[in-house]
């Protein structure tokens, strides 16, 4: 698969700050929705700036559409739509005038402005000054300016910041539509639940390294390794000892529930059999599927 954006052994760190990229090899496949995940301050925004040449890596290289960034800009930027972390727009202009300015820079017609306003549901406030918009509306305006050129690649840094549930749903539907159209999307967020169902690929950034990078399928395989069941029974302490004797990894939770690590769904019936044989009454058993947060935490813990 061709990579629309990739970095090679990229190093970048602030003089008195955290290491953002430590030999980073980021690979964003064409047509993917790539979720860049990391805790606050992990350097997601700086990484996006590095990909756009707004910061210069101390070593290594960045390629956009297969070309070194330095050679490719500003031509490649014709194909890139960008939403930076804090929405930026000229406050004294109206929503429509602001989009007109950005359309002028990109030689776009009025039709594109109308379409962007419609798609981001900003038509009703097109005549309102940017300074009068709410945070969520400003975020949608940033999305509108990013989508106006109908780019091949979207780089979206925390695009749901400040959005209400309706706004988040709008972003989700836009992302789905762009993905269907074959666009490549890099989306960064620290709210992992937002990304879980949307992304085809993930990159987990931690201390300048990608502790995981790959497709959703690859991540799912990792998830299966960390399946567990949560159960409650008549004698928790005895049940824990019995299961440990059978080489299960067991944790006793504060509410006297047990958490048992399993490898596949069928392991749950084997656990039930073991408990029944030990004459322990099983009240409740539930398979726990790890969320993206759990995977992220387990990966960053081991690294």
């Amino acid at each position: 698969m061709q990579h629309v954006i990739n970095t090679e052994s990229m190093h970048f760190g602030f003089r008195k700050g955290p290491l953002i990229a430590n030999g980073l090899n980021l690979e964003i496949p064409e047509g993917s929705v790539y979720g860049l995940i990391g805790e606050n301050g992990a350097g997601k925004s700086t990484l996006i700036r590095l990909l756009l040449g707004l910061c210069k890596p101390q070593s290594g290289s960045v390629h956009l559409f297969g070309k070194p960034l330095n050679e490719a800009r500003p031509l490649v930027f014709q194909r890139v739509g960008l939403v930076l972390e804090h929405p930026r727009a000229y406050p004294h202009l109206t929503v429509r005038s602001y989009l007109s300015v950005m359309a002028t820079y990109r030689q776009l017609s009025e039709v594109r402005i109308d379409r962007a306003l419609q798609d981001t549901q900003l038509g009703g406030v097109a005549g309102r000054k940017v300074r009068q918009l709410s945070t969520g509306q400003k975020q949608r305006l940033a999305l509108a300016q990013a989508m106006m050129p109908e780019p091949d690649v979207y780089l979206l840094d925390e695009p749901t910041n400040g959005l209400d549930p309706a706004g988040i749903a709008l972003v989700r539907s836009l992302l789905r539509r762009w993905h269907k159209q074959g666009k490549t999307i890099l989306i960064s967020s620290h709210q992992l639940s937002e990304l879980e169902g949307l992304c085809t690929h993930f990159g987990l950034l931690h201390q300048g390294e990608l502790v995981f990078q790959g497709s959703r399928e690859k991540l799912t395989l990792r998830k299966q390794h960390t399946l567990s069941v949560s159960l409650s029974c008549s004698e928790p302490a005895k049940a824990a000892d019995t299961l440990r004797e059978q080489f299960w990894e067991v944790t006793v939770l504060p509410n006297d529930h047990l958490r048992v690590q399993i490898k596949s769904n069928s392991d749950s019936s084997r656990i039930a059999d073991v408990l029944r044989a030990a004459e322990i009454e099983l009240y409740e058993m539930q398979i726990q599927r790890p969320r993206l947060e759990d995977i992220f935490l387990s990966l960053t813990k081991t690294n």
Partner: protein
Amino acid sequence: MYRSILAEWQKAKGSMALWLAVLGTVFNVLLFAGVALVRYPGGLNWSDYLAIHYQGISTMMLPLFVIILCSLVHDLEHRQGHWELLRTSPVSPAALYMGKWIFMLQLFVFAHLMFVVGLLGTGFALGWLVDGFSALRQNPDWSELLRLIGLTIASVLGILSLHHWLSLAFPRFIVPLTFGILGFVLTLLLQNGGWEYLWVLPYAAPLEYVRDWNKLPQPDWWGIYAGVWTSLAYGVIALIGGYLWFLSKW
């Protein structure tokens, strides 16, 4: 380049820079018409009327106007963090850099032409409405007026390029503004002290280019105050230097 300049004009709509240009000009026109009326109750001719206006703006208004104009235009990008979006737009650095410079020059020329139209309007109005000002019913010396317009524009080019660079380099509005005001005040002090090399300073030209009405001895090259030529030199050098700096940060 064209779309970069056009975008600057679109941004200017309702901006502080445009308000400064329009309101500042209206204020100057009314102020100096009032000065003429109060100081010369017996009337005056067009040459004196032009002198009041051009001496008035050259003493203070011109350098400060250009310094504040540059700071305001750049502050709009810095304050909103908009440079990052511009740098990732498909516009070349040369078009962005020169587009902003040409826009600021155009805005200055626009404001100055408004000033000229205003002073002609108030001059003719005084000529027809106020006894004793009947000399203003005649036409002014158009060639003198054109020469003053040309010299005014040439005299601010040095400050324009220098402050284009400074305002680009310092994201905080106050830094280029302070630099400009200090430079301007220093030039004024040296002018009052009668320093003979005043013309080497970039802020000197707008203060002294109306040499015909200036009492201080001034060096002139080809009939024009030397400071105007140094303004042109500063204009070119700072424009190129600023662009090279801009490219190094690109």
